[in-house]
């Protein structure tokens, strides 16, 4: 079972827009909520009001980028399982618990077979797998497999919890094997990229790089006066008239 399928019929995955993600962590909370209340062992927390450690399938890092030109940027960087085509986490698994589905390419863990050795988490270059401390079994993003095909849910809810909840529209879900799907066209239009291509995992999930930011306040612009500047300049340094009187009176009190 831990042999990878030669090819998958679909490649369901996420496209994450680093330009629009605002780092609100709403997707982290939605993910933890759904995956704690539904399929599989709940995602436990250890000492949540103290040292605060726990299992998460989706985490948001934030990076500071200082480009050669222009201003520094803060980029919020969501990271979850990329459902790789050549998933090293699957082939190392000794028990057959880890597998990649032929029908849609989703990488899953069969919790009834996992022995909690942790080797698959070592094999994943992205840190997308975590052993749950309470359950002792491997947890990872399921692409909300219990939502996307769930006919008990209204149609608009049949997407991963993180995608459904993202207030910025930074997360997109779809079939990346179909060149005409919305996600594939988005990747095409925005130059979507793979993370760590040199690790040769062939991730399905794609990341859209941040767009160029405007340069209105970039260092080379400062010093030049805007044409509107005279109208925007403060009219009086010291308050005069009624405000001035009020100010002086209050000062005396």
């Amino acid at each position, binding site marked *: 079972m831990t042999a990878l399928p030669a090819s998958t019929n679909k490649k369901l995955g996420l496209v994450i827009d680093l330009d629009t993600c605002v780092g609100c962590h709403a997707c982290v909370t939605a993910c933890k909520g759904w995956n704690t209340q539904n399929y599989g062992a709940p995602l436990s927390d250890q000492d949540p009001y103290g040292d605060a450690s726990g299992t*998460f399938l989706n985490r948001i*890092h934030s990076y500071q980028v200082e480009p050669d030109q222009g201003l520094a940027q803060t980029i919020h960087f969501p990271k979850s399982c990329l459902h790789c085509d050549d998933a090293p986490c699957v082939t190392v*698994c000794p028990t057959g618990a880890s597998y990649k589905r032929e029908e849609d390419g989703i990488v899953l863990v069969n919790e009834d077979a996992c022995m909690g*050795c942790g080797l698959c988490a070592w094999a994943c270059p992205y840190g997308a797998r975590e052993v749950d401390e309470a359950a002792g079994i491997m947890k990872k993003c399921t692409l909300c497999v219990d939502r996307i095909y769930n006919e008990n849910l209204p149609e608009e809810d049949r997407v991963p919890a993180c995608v459904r909840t993202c207030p910025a529209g930074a997360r997109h879900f779809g079939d990346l094997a179909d060149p005409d799907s919305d996600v594939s066209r988005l990747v095409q239009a925005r130059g979507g990229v793979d993370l760590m291509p040199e690790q040769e995992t062939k991730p399905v999930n794609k990341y859209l790089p941040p767009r160029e930011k405007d340069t209105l306040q970039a260092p080379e612009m400062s010093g030049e006066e805007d044409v509107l500047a005279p109208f925007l300049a403060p009219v009086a340094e010291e308050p005069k008239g009624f405000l001035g009187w009020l100010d002086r009176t209050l000062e005396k009190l």
Partner: protein
Amino acid sequence: MHPAPSVIIFSTLSGAGFGLLFFLGLDPDPPRGWVGFTFFAIAYALACGGLFSAFFHLKNKKNAWKSYSQWRTSWLSREAWAAVLALVVMGVFAAGLVFRDTHFAPLGWVGALLSLATVFTTSMIYAQLRAVPRWNQAATPAMFLAYALAGGALLSGRETWSGWLFLLAGAITLWHWWKGDRRFAEVGTTIRSATRLNSGVTLFEAPHTGDNYLTREMVFRIARKHAVKLRVIGLLAASLVPAILVLAPFDLGFAAKHALAGLALLIHLGGVFVTRWLFFAEAEHVVGLYYGAHLDRQAA
């Protein structure tokens, strides 16, 4: 990587145990009766003790038996097979020698091969991981095999053999360190390739205030200063000192020679323990880059 004591003990002890089984299996005139029993008992205690401590590392032990199912793809599954087959074959071989005074040589050869295969499969669990560049090199299996053979040779009373094997293991360890210090840059994963963001990327905020499974398990950092000291201690104890003790041409009595060999063995195992600790503690997992670690190791 987090240097878990159970895994380090496992690989040190079971390596020596399977090394001893290898030499017992190939021996043209292996020990029989009570002497044989003692040798095999030591080998099994080391090999099984090691396996047991690895078993305790599992977080869901009740499914351990399922690890026999994926030998086609998984080195960990192959290790489980090799270990059990080696122990069973050598068990039959030992029973013949101890209880029946019969030496069935071909069985010993098969058992010897399986014992080596066990050590090799253990090493491949680490060597296969591209995400841990320091392990992902040919010197990793070479080093595990050399230490197993060196320890096994001494345990089986082959002092001269063990002396040269100690030196060989030491040389391979140096090779592993030399290559290992370069592997991260060779693999080419950097914080830029990890995030695909442009020049000058630094971690601004981690995803969480506390630590997590990933940072505990995979983002272990050891001060470079200590690493150098420990490398010197490890190399001296695992290789040079025991080699000198067993190869030195003193004309000692039988008892003194055995005492010296015993001392060499203890120093050697201590040294292997130190180098194994370093093998884990120094290993950088590429996921550390996401947490702002190992930037000094990445390619420019």
